[in-house]
């Protein structure tokens, strides 16, 4: 029998949703596959596996990245947050998740995890910008749209998603 070549695995450790993970990964493994197939985090969605749709968006050290293009080995030493990590232990949703539901911004939901993580990353960006600043900066609607350009949605027409993002990023204190 022929064998598919097994390449040598590399040890990595990172934090996933505040939990320490140590594991061995192939150098070619993509973070999306590791998350979904090995760590059971199926909330992160494969929409294209080529960096074009944003469904696989997760946060690495607070910034949105497409996990389908991100080599798992590069996660070493980093903090990763997936959609599952936004739900508190007592079952309360993150305010972005709540805003998505309340604004009617989810239909089939396949894009939703990625959308929410992208909105989280905008929030994180402004949080870091506003550290110890008096006049807190906020994104405007056009900037929010630009941030979300990498996340495709076929169901909602984006309007409700932008509404939800505005609600969290502009209107909430």
């Amino acid at each position, binding site marked *: *029998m*022929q*064998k*598919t070549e097994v390449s040598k695995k590399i040890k990595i450790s990172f934090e996933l949703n505040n939990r320490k993970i140590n594991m061995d990964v192939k150098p070619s493994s993509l973070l999306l596959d590791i998350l*979904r197939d090995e760590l059971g*985090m*199926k*909330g*992160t*969605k*494969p*929409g*294209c*596996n*080529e960096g*074009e*749709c944003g*469904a696989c968006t997760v946060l690495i050290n607070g910034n949105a990245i497409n996990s389908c293009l991100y080599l798992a080995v590069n996660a070493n030493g980093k903090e990763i947050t*997936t*959609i*599952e990590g*936004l*739900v508190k232990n007592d079952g309360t*949703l993150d305010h972005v*998740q709540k805003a*998505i*539901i*309340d*604004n*009617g*911004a*989810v*239909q*089939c*939901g*396949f*894009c*939703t*995890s990625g959308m*929410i993580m992208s909105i989280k990353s905008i929030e994180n960006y402004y949080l870091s910008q506003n550290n110890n600043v008096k006049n807190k900066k906020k994104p405007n609607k056009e900037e*929010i*749209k*630009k941030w*979300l*350009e*990498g*996340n*495709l*949605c*076929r*169901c*909602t*027409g*984006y*309007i*409700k*998603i*932008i509404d939800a993002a505005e609600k969290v990023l502009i209107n909430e204190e």
Partner: protein
Amino acid sequence: MLKKRKLNIIGTPVPKHDGKIRVSGQAVYGHDINLTGMLYGAILRTEHPSAIIEKIDISEALKLEGVECIITADDIDVNNISYKRDHPILKKGEVNCIRDEIAAVAATSKEVAQNAIKLIRVEYKIRKGIYDPIEALEESSPQINKFISGKYKNKNTAEVFKYSHGNIEEEKKKSIVNVSRRFTLPRVTHACMGTSNITAHFDKLSGKLVLYSSTQVPFLYQRDMAHALKMNPSDIRIIQPVIGGGFGSKLDMYPFEPICALLSIKTGKPVQIIYSRQEEFIASPTRQPMIIDIACGADKDGNFTYRDIKIIKDNGAYTSWGATTPFVIMQAFSSLYQVKACKFEATAVYTNNVFAGSFRGYGNPQATFALERIIDLLADKLKISKAEIRLKNANYKNEITGQGLHYETCGHIECLEKVISESNFYNKKNTENGRFRKGIGLASMLHVGGGAKIYRSDGCGTTLKIDPYGYCTIITGSNEIGQGSETVLAMIASEELGIELSKIKVINTDTDIKPWDVGVHASRTSFVAGNSLLGAINILKDKLNNKAKQLLNTENSDFIYQNGMIAIENANEALALDKVVREMHFSEPSELAIASYFYEPLSQFQNKEFKGNVSGTYAFASQAIEVKVDTYTGNIEITNVHTAQDVGKVLNPLLLDGQIHGGILQGIGYAISEEMIYEEGKLLNPNFHNYKLLTASDVPNIHFYPIETNDKQGPYGAKGVGEAPLIPTAAAIANAVCDALDIEVLELPLTPERVLKAINFKK
């Protein structure tokens, strides 16, 4: 004390009933299923759109560790699929389009399955393909699909639809203006964010097959699958995981699905097939491309006189629902606006292209585009306003059209008036002459709004149960595909039974449990499933009322259901609903708090001439769309979309907005950016980089005006809403671009290159 009040839940912006699982990563899509011992399937497709298969060699692939099974056409005993049974599941001897399946592998990992596919050697003898339907109709062209009955004289004709009403020659004589054009509509695809997928699990001991499938039509699918596999339908159980978008793409069964079942049957293990994005572009169905020749006239008063339409549809190499889109298309031509005579012929022609399936709107966006473009041209010739000519000919309440559609309610005039006034249509004349030109365009649409009687039944069943703790379970035949049907059903039950939404569960994913329903299509779910649920509620309430009468010792059965209580209006005594149910269960004469109801709409089958009142009700919509065109780059910016839609009654404004926005964005994509580009039958842009979906930055201002006509057939007066929003969009945009630039638009999409070409042509 309970008091009667108006609607409490219906009409309010209730967020999605199943929203929490969808925002927290907990919803289980087909892609997330992982069964014990599951194998991964992969499909080898042809490299050439038209070729003889000389040899298939799987020997190298079989040697690969982890490969458990490889099948080709020689290994399976199956029937052809598609409603015309013209589509072999695995191709034998020849291939006829680029999506053709030649072999399939099941292996212990995705990687191994993919590697095995690469090791299968196929020798082809390449033939010249036929990619133009007009060429396919020529006598000298070879027969492309060998499985057809020979019903038509021409060997590549798949299907012909003919329709007529009125006396077209008479009407031509009365016409003072005549316009004719040829319009060409492109191939576009659903591009659901979740790619096609299936997990099949055949149990050798019981001989039963479980399919985790994202079909929109589980009961038709069960029957089709059974026919394909030569099994008994009842031995096949369909379980529907959460669906990552439908839009019509999952209305038919495609080869990968019985292939996956066959791999499971052969191995006795669960097998999963998930399309890659590229495969999704290449191998999932598309919208029906068309060439529409249309001639229309109007008399001296601006009344429409006749429409003469000939359509050629590229059927691809096999048939799917795209071939039957004339059912809907002919309605637009025969019955959108009043028209005295109509002659219609549509021919589906086999080619070596991929086949077209159903896609939200079902041919109507194509038809509406042609018709609404022609109406603008007629208005120009008559020198009357584009708004006036539409208002003059608009459909009206109680109209019975030439095709026999009966508009018991009709918001067409109101929709037109609304968008005309809100967009300030009359005062928006294009005056600018600089680089940027602005324009505005109008278009309307007509679509079935209460199902469509095209199968033997257009019905939907419901079983409703209240448990001894006052919780309610709705077991419905209908499906949730993201559109929000679960929410609407839960709202109806909450409204009628006075049970809070959090205590209502909707069960709708398992053919072993749920009652019959024809499926999600024709914008029918709220209408048909809603009415079905209301029927079940009435029966259950009769039972509850009887028990309540007994408990309260009263003859009065005029009970009010509110806040989990049952009482006669203004009476002092009220009963807890859960207590009434317990009494039903546990005291003599004991009975279950369960009711079942089957709702069949009051629509008719059409006769052989396609005449008859085919839907329970009809939906209308009008759009006025403003554009700004950059004459240097050819870029079109959609600035404002005014859309008015006769929805009968708003059941849930939040979900309704979502349907409107999503539909309009798909319509804009169809108008300006989306196009599958083929060269000699090969798709050149099978990815999101080159197939342009709109993004958040492309969103225009959408002004939505729901029009409530309260159709007595609909639940609370509601009509179907799902397909309408995208139907007139491309037409209105094309009209706006013509208004801005004074050019001809004969094809879509209006990409920058096409716009520039049209501008240069004018110069």
